[in-house]
């Protein structure tokens, strides 16, 4: 197992994702002799997980069952322990494409936060790229570095514990892309520029408030960035449902009386026996996230 390479069987030391049912997942660190409690009962790692094929069904002690899944950045995003607000897959997908990330890209990121985006970046830039990520919160920086090691992607990433607004990314002239998710991105635009390759590259800033976007755009324009573009992207989930719509009773139809014989034979249609129509359709969830953040992209021209 690695977050950048598939394998078929669960091994000791892997991080596996337990799929419990509808949008409910939990990550487990697979260890000989360890146990994990779920609402369907206990999972014994040595017998239930190790040596099993990823994707297989695991029967828990109470007779319930779950699926053990190979980790992916997307599954990690929905199951990781939150230490901060995180970026979700919809924004991550857009960021990855708009920053033109691909195998071999050198990327700078700040702050690292809970590492949701970091894992997605690492997946995309492997095996030859590198991520320089900056997190000013010491405990978070240490924790995320530990996770990178557990997930076997630590050879692709350097975590720096410093303030990106004051000290920058710790590298200059190397990055193809820079991503900023900090409260005052405009203070880091200069450092972003310095971190990027001389021939140019792409930058993205994620901010929840429009005032932050305004200041960031001004700073980007000041520093000579081009193609400045702000967008917002929202996910709509459609729940597939079978619904049935009752048909109203219009009473006896007088035009049908031309054939009195058939009327006699027809069963009584009144009473609780309503006719209805069943169909497959989708319904929106009752509540959906209406805003995550504005994404501002720009291109650094050659300098």
């Amino acid at each position: 197992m690695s977050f950048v390479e598939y394998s078929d069987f669960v091994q000791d030391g892997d991080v596996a994702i337990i799929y419990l049912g509808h949008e409910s997942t939990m990550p487990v660190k697979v260890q000989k002799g360890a146990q994990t409690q779920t609402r369907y009962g206990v999972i014994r790692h040595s017998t239930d997980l190790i040596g099993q094929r990823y994707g297989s069904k695991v029967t828990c002690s109470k007779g319930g069952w779950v699926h053990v899944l190979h980790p992916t950045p997307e599954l990690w995003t929905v199951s990781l322990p939150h230490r901060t607000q995180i970026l979700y897959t919809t924004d991550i997908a857009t960021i990855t494409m708009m920053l033109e990330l691909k195998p071999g890209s050198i990327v700078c990121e700040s702050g690292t936060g809970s590492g949701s985006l970091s894992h997605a970046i690492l997946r995309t830039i492997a095996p030859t790229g590198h991520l320089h990520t900056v997190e000013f919160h010491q405990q978070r920086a240490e924790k995320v570095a530990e996770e990178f090691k557990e997930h076997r992607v630590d050879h692709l990433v350097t975590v720096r514990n410093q303030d990106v607004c004051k000290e920058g990314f710790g590298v200059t002239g190397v990055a193809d892309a820079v991503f900023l998710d900090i409260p005052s991105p405009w203070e880091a635009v200069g450092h972003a520029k310095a971190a990027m390759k001389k021939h140019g590259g792409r930058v993205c800033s994620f901010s929840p408030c429009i005032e932050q976007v305004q200041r960031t755009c001004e700073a980007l324009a000041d520093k000579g960035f081009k193609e400045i573009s702000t967008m917002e992207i929202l996910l709509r989930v459609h729940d597939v449902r079978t619904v049935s719509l009752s048909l109203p009773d219009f009473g006896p139809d007088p035009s049908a009386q031309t054939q009195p014989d058939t009327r006699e034979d027809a069963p009584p249609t009144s009473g609780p026996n309503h006719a209805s129509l069943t169909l497959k359709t989708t319904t929106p969830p009752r509540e959906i996230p209406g805003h995550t953040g504005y994404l501002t992209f720009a291109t650094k021209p050659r300098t």
Partner: protein
Amino acid sequence: MADNGDDDSQYRIKEGDFIVLKRGDIFKAMQIQPRKKVIFEKQWFFLDNAVGHLYSTTFEIVSGGTLQPQKLKDTESSSDAKEAGTDNRNIVDDGKSQKLTRDDIETLKEQGLNGQEIIQQLIENSSTFRDKTEYAQDKYIKKKKKKYENTVTILRPSCRILAMMYHGREPGKICHLRYDTLAQMLTLANIHAGSKVLVFETCAGLVLGSIMERMGGYGSVIQMYPGSGPVRAGVESFGFPAHFQDMLHEFPICHVNALLAGTLDTTAKDPSADKKHSNMAEEEEQNQPEAEQQGSPEEQSLETNTSDDKGQDQEEKEKDKRKEAKAQERKVKLEEKRKKLAAAATLLEGRNADGLVIASRFHPCPVLMGLLKFLSPSRPFVVYSQYKEPLIECYTKLKEHGGTVNLRLTDTWLRHYQVLPNRTHPLLLISGGGGYLLSGTTVAMDRSKPAGSQRAEEPAPKRLKLTDTEG
């Protein structure tokens, strides 16, 4: 690791490169070819001069269609005369505020004035410009720039640029797949270097190319194609290095049933040939295409017409030679095709692919149910459709069939913003829809229980409760 100042060669435009032209928000992909006239946004020019310049350079189109790199002086024109009104109460639309006539502007153009100079002339000859508010002045200049500035930027192609280009220019060719939807697909399918991905697309090769870009030449992509051959025009536009071709395989979808049943014979010379042919002796098989060609009506008529003439006899011999060479060429091609089919079949037979991406004009349901069988358990898949209803059907089928979890039917909603000092707002016009996605993860099929007994995630219809209370 810092950039080497001399190492610019890889960033320079070369002859034969696949490039993208950009003006405003308009893109156009093409190849740099010597002395080839290019028409873009009602302007014609030659790309020869661009060769040797760096990518992302903006060029001015000068007379005769030559390109000249633009000097870096952009926003000075608007900043010199900072005289502006506060509101429009005294601005009357009498149609006479512009003193220059259509003909005057044409003359200016003929005199060889560049876009910037023409705009300056328009401003100077507008009696109301000074009374306009600062914002209105900005807007005026922007509008005129769009019309008169004759510049073009040359970009290196990327998934981002090509996806935006196709969506803007030819959405019909890519089943109206919007770029943000494509972005979701690449992420939901966990496309990355080193994996083995199945693709079925009729999006001109855009989806395939995007997947190849994300895989960076590592791993393998098997394109399942309908009809006689895969469409890859979009792939070419990416301008991938030659070695990317090594990871690309193709397999005709019409052979999927045979492959699944184990009856596919990859020794057949032509994948579209009938299966009974594959049992024939190899010698016979190889001769067949040749015989077919000789028997074609055109060849026969040519022969009868020229048989008497001696001078043309020579020609005839040469023609025979050429024919032979052609046949030989065809034989080699067929052999290559056979090898490719066999290679793709071998890749598929393991039924251990790492991902599946479907985006086509076909009904996704049979495609999904057929191709899902080639995936390992615990692997993601994603299906695109321009319409929601067929994906509802896919969802229902998958629930009945089992073997998948984490099913989600989604679409994304995209909004662009204008961000300017005191003029920030969402853009007035946004895309109405970018298609729908069904995504999920494969799991091992349960052999002990019948498929019907899978735990249903869908709640029972609400009606039951209603009738209860009514009774």
